[in-house]
């Protein structure tokens, strides 16, 4: 995998050959204006997913919690 990654990164290096002086980065293809403007929802509670349905999908659960290994050790 090390060799694969080296080959990919060396190909990516071709980006250096493009003159980007003064070019503004483009984070996403279409400016919000081109899609009809930003969509802002009204600040009202809407439909949400059922908490029980979500908890039932957790790999390990304890009551209404999702269980994880101890995060804080005695020294913390």
């Amino acid at each position, binding site marked *: 995998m090390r060799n694969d*990654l080296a080959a990919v990164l060396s*190909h990516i290096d071709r980006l250096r050959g493009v003159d980007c002086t003064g070019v503004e980065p483009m984070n996403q293809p279409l400016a919000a204006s081109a899609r009809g403007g930003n969509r802002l929802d009204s600040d009202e509670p809407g439909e949400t*997913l059922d908490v029980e349905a979500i908890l039932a*999908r957790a790999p390990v659960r304890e009551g209404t919690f999702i269980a*994880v290994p101890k995060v804080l050790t005695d020294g913390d």
Partner: protein
Amino acid sequence: MATDADLLELHEHVAAVSSGRRSAEEGVRLVLDRIERLDRTLRCYHEVFAAEALAAGREIDRRVRSGEKVGPLAGACVAVKDNLATRLGRTTCSSRMLEHWRSPYEATCVERLVAADAIVIGKTNLDEFAMGSSGEHCAWGVIRNPWDPRRVPGGSSAGSAAAVAAGLCHVALGSDTGGSIRQPAAFCGCVGLKPSYGRVSRWGLVAFGSSLDQVGPIARSVRDASLVLEVIAGEDRRDATSARMPVERLGGSLEEPVEGLRVGLPREYLSEANDPAVNAAVRRAAEALEAAGATIVAVDLPLTEVGISTYYVIAPAEASSNLARFDGIRYGHRAAPVAGEDLAELYARSRGEGFGDEVKRRIMIGTYVLSSGYYDAYYRRALQVRRLIAEEFDRAFERCDVLLGPTAPTPAFPIGAQQDPLSMYLCDVYTVNADIAGICGISIPAGTTAVDGAALPLAVQLQAPAFAEGLLLRASRMLEQVMGTVGLAPAR
């Protein structure tokens, strides 16, 4: 008793079901029978919803008999790529990470299909998390090309394209981040449409590259693709990136040739590195369009090749961020507990066990190009080149309405032929730039070529400006009328 010859194209089937000339239930039975016979080899489906689909078919038949109105896709059997959330069955992304995952909600595009009386027949296999161009990176095994099972179907919407080509559904949904709808459609002899960024809601699509991902149809004809797009496209409150642009209803105008169509043929697209049969197909398509009244315009897209470098920075960067949610805590695969292990070790082991090699590779590339010290050299620079690529398309579209070229440099290659990741990535050279710029593109069958005793589909791609799907589809239909479709793959 229905036979293989009865598997109509989607638009014919829907018309026959809606008018009561055919039974939707029998249509489902025919598709299920073909899956039973052919999918053992092809492995298009991870899950098939036989009982539910038959029941849905019966219900549509009942409504037709009682004179109730049925939807525009009544009775159409739809295969859904397994990175789209469905209430029925599991949503695995063909990954061990989500092997047992059942979504508590349904993707908007699937909801809209069902509301139009389409029938979800099953979930199709993909390259894990939609990362791959061959269908070989699926945790449940390699997916095969129905035209020649020794060859790949393309990817990442491998099962979707192969299922359409083999007649294991009427139409399928795929997703396209760097070519994942168009390239497998090309390898399998289907029509594959990547809509413009923002055209179709991504609610319920498992995120890969959020500034690139789009959902679209893989179909047997341009008309079928057009019918499905009209159902799934349009604004969705649940996807902030879905556009508020009206959805064009083509109807009968799909059959009308575009008057004075200007077709741009970029010099860079007819590279000598392409398979000669591919370049010949593009030239035939240009001649066909010219014969249909179009004008061919030579254009230049010098940034075509650097698109691969740009894409393989942006897409892995976004993937590394999106896939961080798979940590084994709230859902998905969690590694078995080890005494004394801390949280970070649990994350690492869960990911190590849950993700396949290609996904790990992309996450590593992504975190590398986003890391402090490399961010400007790679990520920021890729975003700058992205703008230059988009501007290059803008300039080309001042001189032409659509761009014509190959979908992929070669026809379907043999399973195992692309051993190193970079050579696999280079196969995406003609598809990534449409995703980078957010424009729409479509792959259309362009005859077959004989290779190793099998007929393999050839394809060409048309691209059009963002939200010009109507124009793109009408131009595609012009081409299809002259070149014809390749039909279903030979059943084996």
